[in-house]
Every structure is written in structure tokens, then in C-alpha cells.
């Protein structure tokens, strides 16, 4: 559901056409609501690490022509925390051959299970709460049913898991949002600059009402992959070192060439005949 257009306001005081006036009226009634969203916290960016992907099981004996695999597509917090404080609902866009290919998941854990036989790209649209962001964020994930090595029959016990790590960045969060989530485990708040005054922390409410939204005890959680940045950082650091050493060597070689005496330079006047 698209966010009401009333929040957008055309700011050049040009001609006040009818639609504009209606928009302005709309805004005044929602002003009380929007007060929190209009005040932003400067210079702080909030970061939500997420993992999204699919887990697909071969159905084995129970498989049929049209339904050979049972798979689940989901979006979870990278450390399995509840994303419900940030995400309002998620829309999964499936292949048109499915009934109602547009599936909306209103509450965490944001996941969807289906049976099928084909691999295709799933569109995942994240819709945030009104004080977080009024724009949706789109992700894409390719559903993989068949394992890399096609040796032997597929096992019903071991699923095909494809997960991607990413981070949602809010460069300019509203004060209301910041207050709500500054102590939330799903949100990474950076180290604050000195002299920064925090808005008063609001209690962490369960935004979606029902039950727990985290995936710490999810039935599939032992298939979840672990994403550690330490490994990558180490590799990158060593690669950088290598490149830097090479650069130093080249610079030295260049300076040797530049500094090399040209013994015949004074005689160059002879050349121009």
C-alpha cells in the first residue's frame, strides 16, 4: 500500500492549483502524527543488518511433477533479532504461475513457504513503518532448488540454502524512529560524536502485536549461515598490503628512472640539425 502522497509537498510557491490545496489540507490534519517524523537526527545513520534468502527441501517420495520441492523465502535480522520494529510488512512477488503471486506478510518473522518445481527470481519489497521511511526498498533473490553438485539423488534431509547478507542504511533517521530503536538489538547505532544529545529513549513496543518476531528459535535456524566480517576484513587487509608493497616498489623504480643522468643531454644541441 503506497504511502499517502500528502507528505510530499511542492515547495516552490508557484500557482496554487486545486490539487495542491487539497494536499495542503490533508497535511494539516496529519500534522500531529508527522511532527516526530519531520525532526531528524543529524549526522547519525542507522544500520539494520539483514539476511535474506531461500531454503529448499526436496520432497523425495512425496514429490510430484508440479511440486517437487518445498521452499521458504524469508528476510531475517542478521543476528536473528526481530525486524518488526523497523519493517511494517514485506511483499514477496512470486512467479506469475503461482496463485496470487503477490504475497503480503504483515508481521515478523517475514517469511513465506511454498511448493513448486521451478527456479525463478523472487522480488522482495520491504515496507517500513511511517516514522522510519515512506519509501519501500526492493531486493531480489534467485530461488535455487537444485544443489551445485548434481552427483546422485537429492537428499530430503539436506536442503539447498542460498542466503545474502546486506545492510539497510537510514542516513537521516527521524527523532521518533531513533528514540524508539536506539536500544533495539536489531539496529546498529554508530558511536555518537562527542557533545551529542540523545533524544529520550522511548520504550521498545512490540509494533506488530502478536507474539515474537525474532528468528532465534526458528525451526530452520540451524540451516542459517553465519556471516562474519572478520574473515573478509582480514583478506582485504592482506590484499591491500600486497598492493601497497607493489606500489612502493614501482614508485622506487620510477624515481630511479627519473633520476637517471642523461649523459648526452648537453650534446643535444647537435641533434637538432
Amino acid at each position: 500500500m503506497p504511502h499517502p502522497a500528502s507528505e510530499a509537498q511542492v515547495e516552490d510557491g508557484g500557482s496554487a492549483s486545486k490539487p495542491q490545496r487539497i494536499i495542503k489540507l490533508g497535511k494539516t490534519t496529519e500534522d500531529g502524527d508527522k511532527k516526530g517524523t519531520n525532526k531528524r537526527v543529524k549526522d547519525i545513520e542507522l544500520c539494520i543488518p539483514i539476511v535474506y534468502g531461500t531454503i529448499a527441501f526436496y520432497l523425495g517420495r512425496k514429490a510430484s511433477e508440479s511440486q517437487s520441492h518445498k521452499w521458504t523465502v524469508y528476510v531475517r535480522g542478521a543476528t536473528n533479532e526481530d525486524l518488526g520494529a523497523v519493517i511494517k510488512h514485506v511483499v514477496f512477488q512470486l512467479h506469475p504461475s503461482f496463485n496470487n503471486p503477490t504475497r503480503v506478510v504483515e508481521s515478523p518473522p517475514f517469511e513465506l513457504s511454498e511448493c513448486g518445481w521451478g527456479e525463478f527470481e523472487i522480488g522482495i519489497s520491504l515496507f517500513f513503518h511511517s516514522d522510519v521511511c515512506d519509501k519501500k526498498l526492493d531486493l531480489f533473490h534467485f530461488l535455487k532448488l537444485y544443489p551445485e553438485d548434481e552427483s546422485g539423488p537429492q537428499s530430503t534431509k539436506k536442503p539447498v540454502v542460498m542466503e545474502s547478507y546486506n545492510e539497510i542504511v537510514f542516513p537521516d533517521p527521524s527523532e521518533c524512529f531513533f528514540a524508539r530503536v536506539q536500544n533495539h538489538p536489531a539496529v546498529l547505532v554508530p558511536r555518537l560524536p562527542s557533545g551529542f544529545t540523545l533524544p529520550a529513549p522511548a520504550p521498545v513496543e512490540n509494533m506488530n502485536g502478536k507474539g515474537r518476531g525474532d528468528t532465534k528459535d526458528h525451526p530452520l535456524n540451524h540451516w542459517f549461515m553465519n556471516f562474519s566480517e572478520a574473515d573478509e576484513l582480514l583478506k582485504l587487509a592482506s590484499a591491500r598490503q600486497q598492493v601497497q608493497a607493489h606500489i612502493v616498489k614501482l614508485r622506487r623504480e620510477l624515481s630511479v628512472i627519473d633520476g637517471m643522468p642523461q649523459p648526452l643531454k648537453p650534446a643535444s644541441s647537435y641533434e637538432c640539425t
Partner: protein
Amino acid sequence: MDAKDILGLPKTPLPIAQEKKSRPHKDSQRKPDGISREVYALTGGVAPLMPSIDVSQLKRRPPSDEKITWQWLPFTSSARKDNLQLYHWVRVVNGVPPTGDYSFAKYNKSVDVIRYTDEEYAKYLTDPKWTKEETDQLFDLCERFDLRFIIIADRFPTPRTVEELKDRYYSASRAILVARAPSPGEVAGHPLVKEPYNVTHEIERKRALSMVLSQTKHQERKDAEVLAEAKRIAESRMAARAAEEPDLPVPSDIGPESAERAVGPGDTISPSNVQVHAAAAAPSTSVIADNSSTLASLRMLKVYLRTYALEQMVQAASSSAGLRTIKRVEQTLQDLGINLKPKVPTKAVCAEHLELRKEILTLLNLQKQLQYKEAEGSSFRDGSYGDMPGTAKRSQRAVDQDRTFVPDTISFGGDRGVKREQKRKGPGRASETPSSPAGAHKRPRKMKASDL
């Protein structure tokens, strides 16, 4: 029994001495005075066409007709008001000591501080915030310390800020000047009257200055981003104004916020009329070459993915490089065992990845430079003997043959480099040997991680 007799050598050492004498004589003919023989040999042993240093200048001595002595003599200085007798060393020429005032006396300048009389104070200078004693003390200190207000503020008996003292002094002096002047027109040109001291402005200015000086690197970066964004907005406004009015992009809430942020660092954009393109339009603007403007445009988005941010930054960093260079960067990354898109794109990992890419770009540029320099150097060396057009061509061919044995470290685009060299050396050349480097040149092996 002299040994020399036995050996049959001549008794007198004359011939040897003669040899010695003649050698220095010959040497002085061959080498110039002032520099040693070895040094002279370094320049090639041939006299330069133009002498670079005038040899006679090298060991100048003072004119020998004057007699110089140094004496410990007393002196007086016009700058001193007391009768203190001081002494110093004086350079005496032919028994005549130097005349004139002490050479540093001319630096003893002081300020003309206007002093008022008591009636003048009563008439013009009364002020609720200042007592007469304070004002008197202020003027005394000003005269004593030549208007060095920091010192005056330090020594002032009651605590006053520098701005308050300055304000009182300048306004009082101004009032006296104007009061004493026969007509206002006469003093209108005086700097005190023309430009009065503005206290509030000064306080504000100093505050702003200290804020700027104490900005952290973080703040500086933010300011650079905002300014870059402001420039972009101004330019897009120009473009938008030139374009049709009704065809405006989707407006968003970003308007007031960017104005808020921009006014802070210093009133660079007029807040009311700022129209910012929505997030959807931001990626479609022309290639953002500047790193900080990429950052700024990212901050304009309400929300974005870390991988998207990395893509934008990588694009901005490699905007100056051609497609071939970008492919080489990616090849290097793969050789080093690094994924082109990081598996765990956290903020730190993305930053490191970006830096690595930039460093690889630098590396590739240096390699190219080195290739060119080497090619230039070798062609210069070979092409300088016996310079007729025919021989020049021959020497350049020699260069190409040299190039076939390019060392393996410069493997990226090595053969391409040679081809480029070829084209540079003239049209006639290319037609002569169309395929020789391609044919003769062995394809260098790809650089492996172990090579680095």
C-alpha cells in the same frame, strides 16, 4: 757504498723534482681553478659552454685597503628615555667608528592614544556600564601596551572581555575625536570615525571562527558533502529553469531538510525554493565524479542498501578509468582472491573494499607510467648517436626488439603498450612493420597473486 751507485741510478734527484714541477704546471693548464680535478671529471671533462659559477666569486675577500677592527664601545639610543649607558661590539673601519642613531631605534613605534580631560569625560563619555576610574585605567593600559588588547584584558582589574574593552576604547576615542573636530567633515576620513567598532558582529565573528577551527574531520567531511550537494542543486535548478516548468520530478520531503542542513554551515542556498530530485531520479543524474558528492547524494536518499552504496562509490572512483582498466582492476581482485562483491558487506568491509580498488587503480597507473618511461628512456639512449633520419629509424626498430623481452612484472597490457608505442613513432614506421611485435612478441603470462 751508495745503493744508487750499485743500481746505477743517477745521484741527483733533479730530474724527479723537475717532473714534479712540470706536472702541476700541466695540470693547471688542464683543469680550471676553484674545483678539484675529480669533480671536474664528473661533468665530462669538457669545459661548459657557459661557466655556471664565476670562479672569481668563489673566494672573495674584503677589500684589502681597509683596516677593520672590532671594538667594545658605549652607545646611545633615541628610543631610550633614561640615561642608561649600554655597550656593544662595533665594527670600526680605519679607526673611525660608525655614526648615527642605534639602528634598532626606528622600530620603537607607539600608538597615539587620545587622552581626554575630565570635562570632556563628563560631557561626552559617560556610560552606564563603565565608571570613570575604569575608563581611565583602560586608557592608561592602552597607552602602556600599545593597544594590545589581549594583554590589556589580562591586566584589567575588573573582569571584562576583550570585546567589551575594545568597544569602550574605540567608542570613547571616536566620541572625543568627533567632539574636538571643528566640523564633522574634517574627521569623516579618520578610520576611527569611518569604520566604528561593531561589538556584536565581532563576538559573532570570533565565535564562528572558533567553531570552524575546532571542527572535527567528521564535520569537515559533512560540510564538503553538503557544499557539493548544494552546487549540484544549484546547477540542477538552472537546468530546471531552462527546461519546461510543468515537467518537474516527484517532489519529496527532502526540501525542508536539505535547507535546514545547508543553512547551518553558512547560508549557501536560499531555503525556500529548493527542489530536490526524488531518490528515483538521483541515480540517473550525470556521472558523479566527485567522491563527496556521491556521499551527499546517498544521504539524500531516505533509505538504501549497503551494496548499492558500494556500487555507487566504486563507479565514482573508476569514473576516470576506461572499461579496459576496470576489467584489469577486476582481474587483479580475482587474482588476489577477493570477491568482486563482498560476501559480508558491512560498513567496514565496504570501506576497505573501496580503498583496495582505488589502490589497484593507482598500481595500474604506475605500471603504465613505468612502461612509458622505460620506453622513452631506451629510445633516447639509443637514438642519440649519429643522427641522420635513416639511423634514427634503425634505432627505433632496435627499441621494438628490446620490447619483445618485456619483463614479466609488467604483464598487464604489456603487449598493448608496445602497440601504442608503435603508433606514436610515425606513420611511415607502422606500414613498414605491421605485425612484427604481435608476431614476435610472446604473450606475457597473467600476473598471479604469488607474483606480488
